[in-house]
């Protein structure tokens, strides 16, 4: 495997781009920065592709290969945190996807960010983002994953708040950063706890755990003595909490729609290949470990399923196209999460959901990236995110129109587009895992997904133009923006068909064996039900928004609506709830109490110490008055006292 030796290029290229653009090129020449970013990210993509081809053709798959590993922190002789590059099917898949998406988004940004006052900074940060995600994906152990996890967080903060002169962007970036950091603190706790129990960070060792290893052993956590199995389960839930926040699962989801304030290429890369996928990737990477730890998977399943339905319902009412896409991402992430959680029947673990989930990550990356780039294109032409001002863009932007149709069909799960295969497998996994409630929910959400995506599609591209720029024909397609959209249409079309079945072959971890009796025979009626739901939803959307009878004004009206619609339109008032909790409870309660303690108690102690020293100084100063007589008096009094109190020999 000669390709392993060049694998470091995958990391090196984005990092170099970040350093060169950030330190030298960015301020001097925006064009140079863009060219460098595209070329180096292209090289990174090429080396990722070469690595993938070499890995799969040389017959090493699906074994794990450590391309390189250097010790980073030595906690003890046998307890080392390494930095390395892990090569196995899952990480290879992610490496290819991330480098490819980053490459596309870089090309797109040339068009989108043209004339921005800080283009160089944008390209530098974009590369930092892809670099940190690549490091996260290729992590060989939890500790490295956490380091890059935080790097992803900070680069997303910098990118969401890229237009820092907009207050909304600043607050959105702060919200995203603080919320994910809040979850990350639990993640770190989980890492500490798990590594304390198992004495390793390594994924291989963690995934090799069986509860039999710790039978009847207890561990002292300082506060109480618990069995090791319990400690591991707590640790697993804590680790999942990190993914919970990063993947913006309910109730930590609010930062994701608000993060739409950033530039569209950023939204695109966040939603398709980096940041939010990190949470799902974490669970996928540690899947055997989670499977061992109690009912963690059940929790993961319910969190995912709830987020899926919740976000899909909200997406049906939104008017801002980027927000619709953001909620759709949330919904799809919910799919991935719950698929990971469906894999346990009693104590037996089946891997259908695991493969389906990774498959869905793969296909979702392409069509979601494509959709965001298309949305950015529209916004660039119409200068607003609002569906009010769109409509009738079909004739003006034909290529974008076709690509949008392809992507939307893909996300709706219409064969033969990519989304159909992966989503179908997820629904099948829910069925095989005998979680029938979630199964029904997933089918329903599948219909909802189709509905809101086509609502967006019809309202944006069909009907009469609702703004001057479109009506008067100022709208055109920008080459730099349309090119990546067109390129992306290819994987959106074919990534499902081409890779169907590959995932099952590559991703089955050797240690989990499924007795055949446990499996429900593949239900052949499921795909047809799913397609049926999608088609019905499509027809409803068409009837409501594009048919001759459609009442577009009514569709876009968000004022004269019933209570339920309003509640959903305002996202169940979650932003307000958060605002209220933060304002009243955190700032008004805890912070004020803390401030009182600070102001009166802590400051009081300090002030008293200062006052005491001050008085002491005043006393001494008074004695240094320069009065000769006073000196003499004290001298004499001192001598007398010395005589009577002290121990003079006479």
């Amino acid at each position, binding site marked *: 495997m000669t390709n392993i030796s060049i694998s470091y290029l995958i990391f090196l290229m984005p990092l170099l781009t970040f350093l060169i653009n950030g330190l030298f090129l960015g301020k001097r020449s925006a064009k140079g920065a863009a060219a460098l970013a595209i070329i180096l990210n292209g090289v990174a993509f090429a080396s990722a592709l070469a690595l993938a081809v070499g890995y799969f053709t040389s017959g090493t798959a699906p074994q794990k290969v450590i391309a390189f590993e250097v010790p980073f922190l030595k906690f003890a002789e046998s307890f080392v945190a390494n930095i390395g590059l892990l090569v196995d099917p899952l990480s290879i898949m992610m490496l290819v996807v991330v480098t490819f998406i980053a490459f596309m988004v870089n090309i797109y940004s040339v068009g989108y960010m043209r004339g921005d006052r800080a283009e160089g900074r944008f390209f530098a940060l974009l590369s930092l983002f892809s670099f940190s995600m690549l490091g996260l994906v290729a992590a060989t152990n939890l500790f490295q994953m956490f380091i890059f996890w935080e790097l992803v967080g900070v680069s997303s903060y910098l990118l969401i708040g890229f237009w820092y002169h907009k207050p909304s962007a600043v607050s959105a970036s702060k919200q995203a950063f603080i919320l994910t950091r809040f979850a990350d603190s639990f993640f770190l706790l989980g890492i500490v706890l798990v590594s304390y129990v198992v004495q390793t960070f390594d994924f291989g060792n963690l995934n090799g755990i069986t509860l039999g290893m710790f039978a009847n052993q207890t561990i002292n956590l300082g506060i109480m003595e618990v069995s090791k199995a319990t400690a591991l389960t707590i640790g697993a839930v804590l680790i999942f909490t990190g993914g919970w926040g990063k993947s913006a699962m309910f109730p930590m989801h609010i930062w994701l729609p608000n993060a739409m304030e950033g530039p569209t290429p950023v939204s695109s890369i966040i939603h398709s290949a980096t940041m939010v996928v990190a949470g799902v990737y974490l669970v996928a990477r540690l899947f055997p470990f989670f499977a061992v730890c109690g009912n963690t998977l059940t929790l993961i399943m319910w969190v995912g399923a709830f987020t899926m339905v919740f976000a899909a319902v909200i997406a049906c009412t939104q008017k801002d196209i980027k927000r619709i896409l953001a909620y759709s991402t949330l919904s799809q992430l919910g799919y991935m999460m719950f698929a990971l959680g469906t894999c346990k029947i009693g104590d037996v673990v089946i891997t259908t959901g695991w493969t389906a989930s990774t498959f869905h990550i793969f296909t979702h990356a392409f069509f979601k990236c494509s959709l965001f780039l298309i949305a950015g294109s529209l916004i660039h032409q119409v200068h607003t995110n609002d569906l009010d001002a769109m409509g009738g863009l079909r004739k003006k932007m034909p290529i974008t129109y076709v690509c949008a149709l392809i992507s939307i069909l893909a996300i709706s799960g219409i064969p033969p587009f990519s989304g159909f295969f992966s989503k179908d497998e997820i629904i099948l996994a829910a069925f095989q895992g005998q979680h029938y409630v979630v199964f029904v929910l997933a089918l329903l959400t599948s219909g909802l997904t189709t509905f809101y995506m086509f609502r967006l599609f019809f309202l944006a591209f069909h009907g009469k133009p609702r703004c001057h720029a479109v009506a008067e024909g100022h709208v055109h397609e920008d080459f730099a923006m349309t090119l990546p959209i067109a390129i992306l249409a290819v994987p959106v079309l074919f990534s499902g068909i081409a890779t169907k079945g590959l995932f099952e072959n590559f991703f089955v971890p050797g240690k989990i064996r499924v007795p055949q009796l446990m499996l429900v025979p593949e239900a052949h009626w499921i795909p047809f039900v799913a397609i049926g739901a999608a088609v019905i939803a499509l027809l409803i959307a068409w009837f409501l928004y594009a048919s001759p009878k459609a009442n577009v004004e009514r569709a876009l009206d968000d004022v004269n609506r019933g209570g339920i619609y309003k509640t959903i339109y305002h996202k169940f008032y979650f932003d307000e709830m958060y605002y209220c909790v933060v304002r009243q409870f955190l700032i008004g309660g805890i912070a004020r109490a803390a401030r009182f303690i600070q102001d009166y108690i802590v400051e009081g102690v300090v002030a008293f110490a200062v006052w005491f020293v001050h008085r002491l100084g005043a006393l001494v100063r008074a004695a240094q008055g320069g009065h000769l*007589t006073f000196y003499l*008096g004290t001298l004499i009094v001192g001598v007398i006292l010395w005589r009577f109190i002290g121990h003079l020999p006479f």
Partner: protein
Amino acid sequence: MTLLNCLILAFLLFGIGVWGLIQRRHLVGMLISMELMLNAANINFIAFAYFTPGDSTSGSIFSAFVIAVTACEMAIALAIIVSMYRRHKSLDVEQLRDLHD
């Protein structure tokens, strides 16, 4: 005449001297009080030498030394006083707080 009479005398003298030293604000007055204290000490030396068995001259030798040292001291102190007077036109210790000016 006993030792005690002499010691009481010396004690009173010394006390008067201390009092004067603290009370007076004039440098010359303070100098005089110093003389009183030193002479009280001299009385002590001589009285002890006289009333205790042993070498009765040692007390006188001590007091002679003290007187000699005092004379030197007085010369120097008076020189300082004179120069201070020239500089400040006053010998009030209350006004002579700072030695540097």
